[in-house]
């Protein structure tokens, strides 16, 4: 009696689902088919295609038919003077970005967080996010309009107050400043979003307790706000450090010109010129693969270091 009563009760949901197994969930697998196929075709097939770095690739013979040459392309690459210049420039630009562009959104987020007037804060955020949504082509155009030697707004102002024209875009050290400044201009505002999100997670009681103790605003910022967003800062720092070898193509490509190539030629633009403009596919792929492997090494390294210091890391 007792047993039959128990049996007539519906099985718990988890049990029922288990009973019907994978078949019950076939729709989940159905949904996944196309996305996974996408990742395999457009992400993993090119990884296999990178094998041409070890070949004397011929576009007619393809990856399967081309002759294998071992590390010949890498040997040739490491012999090129250009190789060391583009690697140095990539590391230099990324490292300077890390020093100057990385703290900017943190500072800006702290300031935005202190704003009490809501409409002002909203307006500020709207305006500060905007540059993130502008293409590098347009930013390149804006930079030219602002900093050109002939008729650029900044130089017009400089000459109007009696100084000499500054070669912002044509002398490499000045160009470097403009390059870094543009990076801050484009990314600082948008970068605050992630820190502002982290700031909302800080326990409000901490501030009240600090108020009772008579802590100043600066003290609260230093002892409560900053430690509160430290995990976020660390994660962002790891990501940036991990990408120290990876440089976007568009920013250096658009901002560079022949007079500043000493600094503006980086790995991505080199790969484009060697690979697509001069059809040295194997050499360019070797460069790309070198970058990807060193990049992966940096990601793993920075993640390990973060964990060693008791931080969460990214995986």
């Amino acid at each position, binding site marked *: 009696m007792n047993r039959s009563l128990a049996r007539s009760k519906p099985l718990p949901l988890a049990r029922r689902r288990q009973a019907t197994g*994978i078949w019950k*969930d076939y*729709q*989940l697998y159905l*949904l*996944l088919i*196309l*996305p996974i196929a996408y*990742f395999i*075709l*457009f*992400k993993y*097939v*090119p*990884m296999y*295609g*990178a094998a041409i770095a070890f070949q004397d690739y011929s576009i007619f013979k*393809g990856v399967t038919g081309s002759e294998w040459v071992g590390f010949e392309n890498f040997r040739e690459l490491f012999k090129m003077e250009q190789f060391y210049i583009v690697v140095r420039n990539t590391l230099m630009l990324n490292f300077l970005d890390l020093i100057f562009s990385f703290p900017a959104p943190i500072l800006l987020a702290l*300031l935005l967080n*202190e*704003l009490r*007037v809501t409409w002002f804060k909203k307006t*500020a955020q*709207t305006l*500060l*996010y*905007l540059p993130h*949504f*502008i*293409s590098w*082509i*347009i930013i390149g155009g*804006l930079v*030219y*309009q602002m900093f050109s030697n*002939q*008729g650029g707004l900044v130089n017009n102002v400089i000459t109007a107050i009696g100084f000499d024209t500054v070669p912002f875009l044509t002398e490499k050290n000045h160009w470097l400043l403009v390059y870094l400044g543009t990076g801050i*201009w484009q990314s*600082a505002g948008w970068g605050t*979003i*992630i820190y502002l*999100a*982290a700031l909302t*997670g800080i326990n409000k009681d901490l501030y009240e307790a600090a108020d009772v103790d008579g802590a100043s605003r600066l003290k609260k910022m230093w002892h409560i706000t900053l430690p509160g967003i430290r995990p976020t800062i660390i994660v*962002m720092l790891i990501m940036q450090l991990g990408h120290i070898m990876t440089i976007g193509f*568009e920013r250096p490509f*658009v901002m560079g*010109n022949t*007079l500043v190539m000493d600094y503006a030629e980086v790995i991505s633009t080199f*790969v*484009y010129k060697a*690979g*697509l403009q001069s059809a040295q*596919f194997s050499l*360019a*792929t070797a460069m*790309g693969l070198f970058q990807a492997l060193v*990049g*992966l090494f940096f990601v793993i390294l920075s993640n390990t270091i973060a964990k060693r210091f008791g931080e969460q890391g*990214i995986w």
Partner: protein
Amino acid sequence: MTNEGKLNRIRLADIAIMIIVGAAMLICLIPFLHIIAVSLSSKQEIISDRVTIFPRGWDFESYKIVFQDSRMLRSMGLTIVLTTAFTIVSMIMSICAAYPLTKTQLKGRSFFMMIIVFTMFFSGGLIPEYLLVKQLGLLDSMLSLILPGMISAFNLIILRSFFSSIPDSLEESAYLDGSSHIGTLIRIVLPLSLPALATLSLFYAVSRWNGFMDALFYISNSEMYPIQLKLYQVVMNSMVTDLTAQEGAAATEVVAEGLKAASIMFATVPILIVYPWLQRYFVSGVMVGAVKG
């Protein structure tokens, strides 16, 4: 210390912060104001370098030329179609991938996640990707600007963490009513995710609107240039030529300055129109889960 003194100090600090943030806002804004001013000023004023952030000698000639340039309009139309198609395809694919990956009963879930996340840190490189697109016969076709970048692993992870934050009880009750997974996704999960969907659509749309690297690689037929590549050809090329040319030789080019500015505005205005409408959806919550991979 008196109460009044403390109040004053706080107000002073507030004003100081507002001034600093205000300066940052101004720095964001000035380049745009300047380019708008140049695009609307007369040639004489531009040549004599008198245009700052206000138009001088109002002149709509530059815009007339841009709007009469059929190739420019064609590029614009094409880019609008391309961006719309890309955004729709990308969103569908991202939703299809993100939803199953929130389900703990999915076999191989962590394996699928791993093969997706790994692509964020390692790639075959530009050349193998180019050769793949070439082999698939996609060069010089719009598909080359849609398919290779249609899912961003980063956006996918944002969406997945948003889906995860929806209480399970809501989905469970739908299952009890006999709803299938896809039915639950469409009827329960998606309507609850509108802010996230709006934000991600904006991310995808903006990346497609602004991106030109793939177009530079894959599209050689100038009839099919998206607007950014067209702009690069029209604006940047001539600017860089000016920059590196001898002084004086470039003097004739300066006249076209207004035209370049108008072209830049032409390609920026669609973003400026859409941006404020979607900006309110950048809920901080959407970004929280994104930091961790």
